[in-house]
């Protein structure tokens, strides 16, 4: 699928390969590259996975791999955590005069 020039997109790039990284790193980090993600306006028609030029919101032009079109946020409030429910109940009981050793 062609993504049209002018689309708002997210790109990814490897800034430093594992070999290019600084020596002063823990073993696990040493083995992986330093990667970067940012967003901007696509400068030419392209396909996902292409190396593309984008213009970021501050007007910088950068080249990187096209990974997402119309990017959006989907972080949330998490799933139900049953342990949390008990806290409010316990505190209200304590404040209402329940003896400390009842709980």
């Amino acid at each position, binding site marked *: 699928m062609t993504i049209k020039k002018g689309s708002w997109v997210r790109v990814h790039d490897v*800034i*430093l390969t594992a070999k*290019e*990284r*600084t020596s*002063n*790193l*823990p073993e*696990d*980090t040493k*083995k*992986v*590259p*330093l*990667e*970067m*993600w*940012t*967003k*901007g306006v696509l400068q030419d028609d392209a396909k996902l996975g292409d190396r593309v030029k984008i213009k*970021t*919101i*501050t*007007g*910088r032009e950068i080249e990187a791999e096209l990974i997402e079109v119309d990017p959006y*946020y989907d*972080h*949330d*409030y*998490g*799933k*139900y*955590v049953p*342990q*949390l429910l*008990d*806290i*409010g109940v*316990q*505190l*209200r009981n*304590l*404040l209402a005069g329940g003896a*400390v050793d009842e*709980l």
Partner: protein
Amino acid sequence: MNSSYETMMARRSEIMKKSVGIDYSIFEYGKISFDYEKMMKETGYTLEEMQDIQGETGVGNTPLLELRNLTKLARKLAAKGKGARIFIKDEASNPSGSFKARRAANAVYHAKKLGYKGVIAATSGNYGAAVASQAAMLGLKCIIVQECYDSKGKGQPEIIEKARKCEAYGAEVLQLTVGPELFYIFLKLLDETGYFNASLYTPFGIAGVETLGYELAMQFREKEGRDPDVVVCTNAGGGNLTGTARGLIKANATKTEIVGASVNLKGLHMASDTDFNKKSFTTGHTGFGIPFATWPDRSDVPRSAARPLRYIDRYVLVNQGEVFYMTEALAQIEGLERGPAGNTSLAAAFSLAQEMDEDETIVVQETEYTGAGKHIGAQLSFAIKNGCEVFIGDPKDEVAGKNIILPSHPSLIKARDIDIDKLRKSYIKNCIEMNNISEITKEDISFIMDDCRVSEENLLDILKELKIKII
């Protein structure tokens, strides 16, 4: 133009000088020393100027609230006659949702005054949102560089939320995987754009927090007719504590005890790709608190204005589960949904209040906004997804990265003391090692004494142990 890692790092001091507008070398003397107060005076702003600058953008004048239900609860758990009154400064009421607006207001104002077209900050936290918000108000461009993902591309939800907030204010956000080379990207961007380095650690940034300490003292006097006995500050890079303490001193509240509090993340390496998403706190923790206290100049400016050992009277740790519990408590019995990271000092204060007399007072000096990604529900779910066990028990058994233990009873919440003398010793060792010296001057001796509040006797013993000659 060559922008390789080596080239950029070699040009570090030149880029820094240009992007921050301060020649730090003019304050330096001896083998290791610099004139901290002179730096703060000559490059910062007066308290009145800062209040004006912040007032222009609606920063500051946040409410000081008494936490009556938490005080009542603390008294139920404490010995007879114990249980200080707990207050909180609701810094979440600042435009960007945290006290960081104070730091950003001054930095961005200064950038504009000096004619910079934009600002850049390297931060995964609330400070990014604060800089972006201020830049929006003052019409400057803004780039925020975050450490956000592990090598599998899995992002910490709190940092993703911060990216969203920065973009909401019109900033460009660059997200990176784990590693100290973030600093390289930061330098490259400063060089490429010519923008101002809105570092957290410049004199303007730290001086921006002085208004918090000052305001707190004034509000407390108006309410209670006296100064608070204890102020607890969540401690990470040291700027919150340093600025607040300096503000209290400017208000002449010199008897107030300054307590630093951090979340205990012992055992988790800050630059480790695999440990990155095992942390349920992205700030306010020992991974920043201890290294920055024992070597403030590891920051992104040559001489950090955040120097917590100059001001800290007591340093305590709390565990992740305890802070999550207190975050829930703050919502459930005080009606304030905030944090969680900013509630580190609240968890500590709840424990410390129980050691203090009923007629004493303790102030938690900040709150921060909460939301998707930041919220305890999001953080606990993320921890479970990353193999961390969440259960109810005794938080003293918590092992960071392996489990999060929500206290089975509020009486199990305990602020645990760190020996500040050990931090002082570590700071002194760093002064010697980082500067790679074998001798120091008498002037350096007085500098170290001021910079970490060590006694002359202890300092001379430590220097002897390190085989350092005094010239």
